[in-house]
Structures are given as structure tokens and as C-alpha cells.
């Protein structure tokens, strides 16, 4: 374990984000309500109003956006919502894809279904599907927008993930020890427990973690074009309704980037930096898990007996 730096970087990175996730509101200097400041009184006199956005300074560590919200607080407070969305998408995809992939490896009908699904949704960029679907008026209006968008992402991803599961299982089915298991009379549950799961789960866990990263990437890309998972309509003065992103998520700082970038580059820069850092920790954690299991598989890492177990044995 000591010799796998990517695993360490991944664990450390993910624990930092876990701390943001759980203790976000209690961290120092975090404004848990992410209050918008319409002005700040300057140092000279009472009439010296400074309008947002503010560049990084003592009060706003990473600066503020156009509404005067502290970016540092917003990013840390946004961790919860962003990571929950990403996690829900990936988790449901995997929960559906693993039985689907295993069934496809056994039953020809599911195999055809999986192939068709994969062809249909994996031959075009998912990004392209999402922008086409998200502009249908039915999905613009608020009540169920979030659920619909998440389900679409799951549907689009299911084929790809299912295919990875299918290929992993097929690889095991081609081995001789699997045949031995079949001859010995293993039932599907036994096959799953003793053959598929032990040799596939490191891959699946690693793929899951990396899938989180890729979903975050996709959400970031969509954020640039102003497509968000949850949107709400709000009326401001004129009869027209503005379509606003309601959730406090990282990609929201990427919206309007072409206008922001010239005048106040810190807004998109720090927003995307957070996405990059979390992707980095996910990718390296995934890579680390794979490498750890590869080394274990080769016998380079000797598994020690668990601490508690050993202690109890000494008592006897």
C-alpha cells in the first residue's frame, strides 16, 4: 500500500472533499447561507460603495461572482449538492448496469438488448443527446426537471457501463477455472459469489469512481452552455420569466463564461479548478484501487490478518 502513490493521492483528495461534504458549513470563514452582497462599503467614506464582482481579497478569499456571493463559500457549500447529484447518477447506473451486464452474459435476449442499447446511445457523444433532449419544452418546466435530467443521464450511460460489466464477466467465463466451477454444479448465486464478484469488483469499484469523475466533467461542460440539472422560473420586473439555475453547484460559475472571462477571470477559473481537483482525486483513487488489486493479484502485496482477529486469537 505504501508504494502506490496514486492510491494515497486519491484517498487524501477524496477525504478532503468528504470533509467539505460533511462539515462544509462549519469550516472557518464559510458563509453557510452564501449571501449575495449587492454592495460593499469601501474604506474611505460612507458613500464609497463598491459593486460586485470583487476580486480575491481579505473578505472574499477567492473573490465573488456578479451577485456578490463569496466563491469560496459557494464552492464549499456546493460540494454537497454537486457530489450528491453525481453520486446518484453513477450509483443508480451501476445498480442497474451490473445485473443487466451479468444477465447479458447468460441470457441471449439480454445480450441483444444490451448491444442495441449500447449502439443507440454510445455511438453519439452523450453531451449531444443531452443538449437535444434538454431543449424540449416539456423538460424545461420546473416540477420534475431535475428527476428527468438525472434519469436521462442514467439511460444514456447504462449501455456503456453494462457493456463493461458484460465484458468483464465474459472474460471470466472463458477461463478454465470457471468451467470447473460449472462442472462442479455451481448455481448462478454461487457463480456470482465465488467467480464473478471476487475478480470483477476491483474493476467495477475503480470504474465507478472514475465514472463519478466523468459525470462531473459532463456537468461542467453542460454548465458552460447554461444547461443545469435543476432550473426554476423566476419573474424579474418584465413579463418574461428568467430560467435560473436553482441549485448551488460548481458548474454554475462556468455559465456566462465568455462575458465573465475577460473582466473577472477568477469566477470561472476557481469554479473549474474545483471540478478539476475533484476529478483528479476520483481518477487517481480509481487508478490506485486498480493498481493495488493488480499487485495483490500478482502476489506483491501480502495480505495481513486483520488486527482485531489476531488479537482475539492471542487471548485464546
Amino acid at each position: 500500500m505504501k508504494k502506490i502513490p496514486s492510491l494515497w493521492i486519491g484517498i487524501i483528495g477524496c477525504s478532503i472533499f468528504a470533509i467539505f461534504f460533511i462539515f462544509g458549513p462549519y469550516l472557518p470563514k464559510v458563509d453557510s447561507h452564501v449571501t449575495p452582497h449587492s454592495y460593499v462599503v469601501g474604506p474611505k467614506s460612507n458613500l464609497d460603495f463598491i459593486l460586485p464582482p470583487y476580486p480575491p481579497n481579505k473578505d472574499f478569499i477567492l473573490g465573488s461572482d456578479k451577485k456578490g456571493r463569496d466563491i469560496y463559500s459557494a464552492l464549499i457549500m456546493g460540494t454537497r449538492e454537486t457530489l450528491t447529484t453525481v453520486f446518484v447518477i453513477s450509483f443508480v447506473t451501476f445498480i442497474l448496469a451490473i445485473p443487466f451486464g451479468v444477465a447479458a452474459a447468460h441470457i441471449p435476449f439480454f445480450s441483444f438488448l444490451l448491444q442495441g442499447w449500447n449502439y443507440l446511445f454510445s455511438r453519439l457523444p452523450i453531451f449531444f443527446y443531452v443538449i437535444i433532449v434538454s431543449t424540449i419544452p416539456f423538460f424545461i418546466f420546473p416540477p420534475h426537471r431535475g428527476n428527468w435530467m438525472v434519469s436521462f443521464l442514467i439511460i444514456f450511460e447504462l449501455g456503456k457501463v453494462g457493456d463493461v460489466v458484460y465484458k468483464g464477466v465474459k472474460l471470466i467465463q472463458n477461463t478454465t477455472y470457471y468451467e470447473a466451477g460449472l462442472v462442479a454444479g455451481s448455481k448462478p448465486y454461487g457463480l456470482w459469489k465465488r467467480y464473478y464478484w471476487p475478480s470483477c469488483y476491483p474493476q467495477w469499484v475503480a470504474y465507478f469512481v472514475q465514472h463519478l469523475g466523468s459525470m462531473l466533467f459532463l456537468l461542467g461542460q453542460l454548465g458552460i452552455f447554461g444547461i443545469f440539472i435543476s432550473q426554476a422560473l423566476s419573474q424579474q420586473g418584465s413579463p418574461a420569466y428568467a430560467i435560473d439555475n436553482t441549485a448551488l453547484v460548481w458548474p454554475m460559475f462556468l455559465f456566462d463564461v465568455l462575458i465573465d472571462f475577460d473582466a473577472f477571470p477568477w469566477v470561472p477559473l476557481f469554479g473549474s479548478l474545483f471540478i478539476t481537483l475533484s476529478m483528479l482525486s476520483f481518477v487517481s483513487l480509481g487508478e490506485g484501487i486498480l493498481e493495488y488489486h493488480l499487485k495483490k493479484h500478482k502476489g506483491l502485496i501480502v495480505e495481513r490478518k486483520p488486527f482485531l482477529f489476531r488479537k482475539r486469537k492471542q487471548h485464546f
Partner: protein
Amino acid sequence: MNLFFRLLGSLCLWICMALIIILIVLLPRDTVSHRVGDLDVMSYHFTWNQYQKNITNYFEEVKTKKSLGTTNFDEPVEVELLLYFKRSIIILIPALFLSIFIGINKGIFDYRHQTKFGRFFGKGTTWLGQSVPDFFLIFLVQTFLSVAMRHGLPRMDMYGDDRWYNIFFPIIFLSMYPAFIIARYTSQALDTEDEQDYIKTEKAKGVPDRMVLLKHTLRNCWPKLLQHFMHIVLTLFSGMFVVEFLTLYHGIGSRLITAIHIRYSIMPGEPLPIDVPAVIGFSLLVMVLLLIAQWISQILDYFLDPLKRRNQT
């Protein structure tokens, strides 16, 4: 013959996909609203009649005018397609080749340098590059260059498409992310190949490392790498939308985004139209390019993998 059937199969699936996309695009986009108190309650208004009318009208028009329609800019779609296709293809093809070139070389570098420091610069940088999204790279480079230009770097045009050298930035931005993915696949494939007995025998016999790599290991890796070809092309295409948008390069990606009219505000009860002919035209163009990529991958797969060919005939 077998190859021919496989190509035909992709074509059939492609036609199904194209039909689905066209049917989605032609959905009616009317909305209705009614007032409850001082709130407007808006909802989507779908009628089969309207949908049917949209579909028949569109296909009628295509049939009579022998064209995919006229865009919002009063140009036949074909004229625009040609213009934007030319612009996009001169960044897409070099970006693809550049990423393959960089990726495979980086993969070989990672594979050959597996010492402590080698790993840090080799595999370490590969997964670092893999986790940097293209938009962050663009922001970083653009910020850096604009600061540098303020401090004396000669001015150059980073945005737009009106100068010949405008293509360089999009090409570099586009190729970076796929390049690192290719590098990872390459070094992975080389590592697994390295454990094979025939490589061990060869090394034991004293064949120079270079020869082993070029003549045997790498050659056996091609089919494995080719499996990821479509994945790379897809990454490249989804990167295209972002890169073109952020560098203001007016290619297929940014044109499709304009045509699709992403809404930031709506009036109660107004329909939310999109530029239907343009969206259909440009979606089909993207899909045709992807179909060609798919065919290339299938053909290469057929010729590069002698085992598969023998099994099938």
C-alpha cells in the same frame, strides 16, 4: 464479404438513430399558460395532430425542394453545412492525428520508464492530464496568455476563425484530453503484453528492447488500442462543442448550439422554437462523421487483427 455485412449493419443502425434524432427534433414546441392568482403556470402542450403536421410538412418540403430546408439565416442548409464542415474538419482531423501521435508516444514513454522517477513523470503526468477537463485547460492557457500579453508578449489573436493561425489553439485544446486517454490505454496494453511468454523468451534471447517493442509488443497492441478508437473519436466530438464555443471558433459545434436556442428566459405561453432544418442538418453531419469513423475503425479492425479474420472465414 463478412466485412461488408458488418459495415452494412452499422449503416442500418445509423439510419435508425438518425430517424430517432429527427423525430425528437420535430417534436412540437408549443407551450400553454394559465394564471393562478398572480402566478403564470406554464406547461408543455403536446398534440399528435401538431406532431404529425410537423413531420409531414418537413418531409414534404425536403421532397419538393430537394434540400434539407432553409435555416434562420435564410440560407439553404447545404450551403451552411459545407462552410462549417470545412472549418471544423481542419481542426478535427489534425487534432485526431495529433492526439494519437502524442498519446502513443507518451504511452511508450510511460511503459519504458517504470523506475521511481520515471513513474512520476510518466504515469503520474498521464493521470494528471487525464483528470484535467478541457475547459479548465482552456481557461488556464487563456488567462496565462492574456497576463503574458499584458507584460510584453507579442499580441496574438486567441479567438475567432478569421485568421489562418486561429486553428492552432483549438487543435491543441482539442487534442490534449484524448491524448492522455490514449496514453493510458497504450501503456496499459503494453504492460499486459509485456507479461506474455513470447516477449520474455525474446528478451531472454537477447533481442534489443527497441526491436522487441517496435516489432512485437506494439504490433500486438494495435487491435487492443483500436477497440478504443470510437471512444476517442466521441471524446473528441464532445470536446469540439466546448472548445469551439470557448475559443469563438465558428464550426459545426458552435453552430449547432446556436441553432438549438438554449433558453435563458421565456414569455408565458410562447412556443419555444428551434431552428429545425439547421439542427437536423448539423446533427446529421455530426452523425455522418461518426459513421465514417465507425467504418474506419471496423475496416482497420478487420485488417489489423489476423486472428479475427481467420476465425470468421
